[in-house]
């Protein structure tokens, strides 16, 4: 069935056998009980940090209708545990491994990337810059173009591995931040991380999460992140990897039409553990049915009339209401 459809995509020189991969923090070894890991477009690890970290106080998740708020934090066993245990584990597969990293400073990011680059088996680095930058009062790097530019440049100098930069949807101007990443050498941007959110327990009047606030993910955020992917794909020439609420092949197609070259699946895996392989199969079927020979042909394929295009520069929340 998928014989006739070419599912491969190219992400800044890295060829993936299909455009479907996990979102960082929603994937681990255990999922190989559910799916054949060799079928995935790529692996993306939970974000790792140099130092050991505990993660946030419990409760760490609370469900909302059609979505999830999480404040897991980044519990990390540190870089040596990763190099000794995790890295060898994934070498047995022919699926490329993308390692998500984080650090509290520009220099921390750069040195972690440099250190990791020495080890074989890493296909790309995904810099999760939606994390607090202690040099900027705890604001996430990806909140601003300036900090994004600095950290991306430092990363670029630190590693020759393909460099993906993962943005936050919480800033007012994601395309501008994407441009900053592109200008300083990123090979791709991942759009996006979770949207900051909150819920209060009406029985106790306390926040539902130990961390008070957390990140919203899942189907409910799809229309928002899809818009950001569309805006970013217009703003940069490097590939955009879409991530936010993807649960079905239709969602993946929508993201690719909006301009995503590949997609990451996060929360959906918690609900349907085989979501990724189901999506890969259905994506092939979709292309077959619509007589699209290569899934890459979908990328940026949304049809917009010229007249509308002109107005895009103007488009702001506003027009929305």
């Amino acid at each position: 069935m998928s014989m006739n459809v070419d599912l491969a995509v190219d992400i800044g020189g890295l060829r993936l056998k299909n455009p479907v991969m996990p979102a960082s923090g929603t994937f681990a070894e255990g999922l190989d009980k559910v799916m054949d890991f060799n079928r995935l477009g790529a692996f993306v690890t939970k974000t790792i940090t140099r130092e050991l970290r505990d993660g946030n106080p419990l409760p760490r998740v609370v469900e909302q209708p059609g979505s999830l708020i999480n404040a897991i934090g980044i519990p990390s066993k540190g870089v040596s545990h990763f190099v000794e245990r995790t890295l060898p584990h994934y070498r047995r597969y022919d699926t490329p491994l993308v390692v998500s990293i984080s650090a509290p400073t520009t220099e921390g990011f750069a040195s972690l990337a440099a250190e990791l680059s020495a080890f074989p088996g890493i296909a790309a680095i995904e810099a999760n810059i939606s994390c607090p930058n202690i040099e900027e009062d705890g604001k996430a790097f990806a909140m601003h173009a300036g900090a994004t530019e600095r950290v991306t440049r430092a990363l670029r100098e630190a590693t020759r591995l393909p460099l993906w930069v993962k943005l936050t949807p919480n800033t007012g101007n994601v395309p501008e931040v994407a441009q900053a990443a592109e200008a300083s050498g990123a090979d791709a941007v991942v759009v996006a991380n979770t949207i900051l959110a909150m819920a209060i327990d009406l029985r106790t009047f306390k926040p539902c999460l130990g961390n008070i606030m957390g990140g919203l993910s899942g189907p409910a955020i799809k229309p928002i992140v899809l818009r950001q992917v569309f805006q970013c794909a217009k703003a940069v020439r490097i590939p955009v990897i879409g991530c936010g609420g993807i649960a079905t092949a239709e969602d993946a197609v929508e993201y690719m039409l909006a301009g995503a070259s590949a997609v990451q699946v996060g929360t959906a895996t918690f609900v349907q553990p085989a979501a990724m392989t189901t999506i890969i199969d259905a994506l092939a079927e979709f292309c077959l049915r619509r007589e699209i020979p290569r899934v890459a042909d979908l990328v940026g394929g949304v049809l917009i009339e010229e007249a509308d295009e002109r107005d895009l520069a103007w488009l702001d929340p506003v027009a929305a209401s």
Partner: protein
Amino acid sequence: MEPMTVRPDGQQDAAGGCACAPWKASVVAELAEVVQNRAVNGEYRHMVVHCSAEAAAAQPGQFFQLLCPMPPGEAPFLRRPMSLYGAFPDRRQVEFLYKVTGAGTRGLDMLKPGDRLDIMGPLGTGYRLDPGLRHIVAVGRGAGLATLAPLARAARLNGSKITAIFSARRPDLVVSVDLFRAEGAEVITVTDQEQTSGPANVERILRGLIAEGRCNAFYTCGSSRLMRVQQRLAQEYGLPGQVAMEQQMACGIGLCYCCVRDFNVDGAIVNRRVCWDGPVFDLMEALP
């Protein structure tokens, strides 16, 4: 039972351990068929579903993640963890015993025989029953009784005798007594109403069993107070023990780290995922 995992399509595990064995799912999310779903007492409901061979191979202490139907006006988003209450590989059935507490379990409550239920499992590490064990004690309360239930048959098959101490608020809320007796177990029930469920009384009973040589290992679930009693006795008498823990879960398969608990491993506090490293843990390592 339509397995919804990827079909083992003959693709090979290219560089893995055995390069020739095709990959095969050991955990499946599938549409099981409800065979029975009815109240066993004022609090608990008993559900039997017909499922795949993989699911029916579940072991005592393992659990499933159930995708609960939506009750009117509510939309449970995550799956809900439920202990295996019984597994019957021959007739491809698994059973659950659950209490209706919120949106998800209200959804389960709506199911009728013939309906489909999306179950994912078996998950986690269950109870270990070492071959030589002569006599074990199972101590449970609340939903813990559900978790301990499949031990009755497993112990008999292992050649271990079993004594169960079941704690509940009222005598009519104790479940699984017949199930245990049918497997040849002795069952002692203690209740709040009869004022027999306090830790002191349970400790007295346990000391009696130990003295009689009828306790070579503790198996427990559902009460921190009773767990502490057993930890103390296990320490005192050098007895092994296992405890099944609960924690809120999202993925149920070790991906998300929302279900962590602290454990005391040789004096160091270690963080573990209940869904993946457990839900059954060494009794002495568990922290309440």
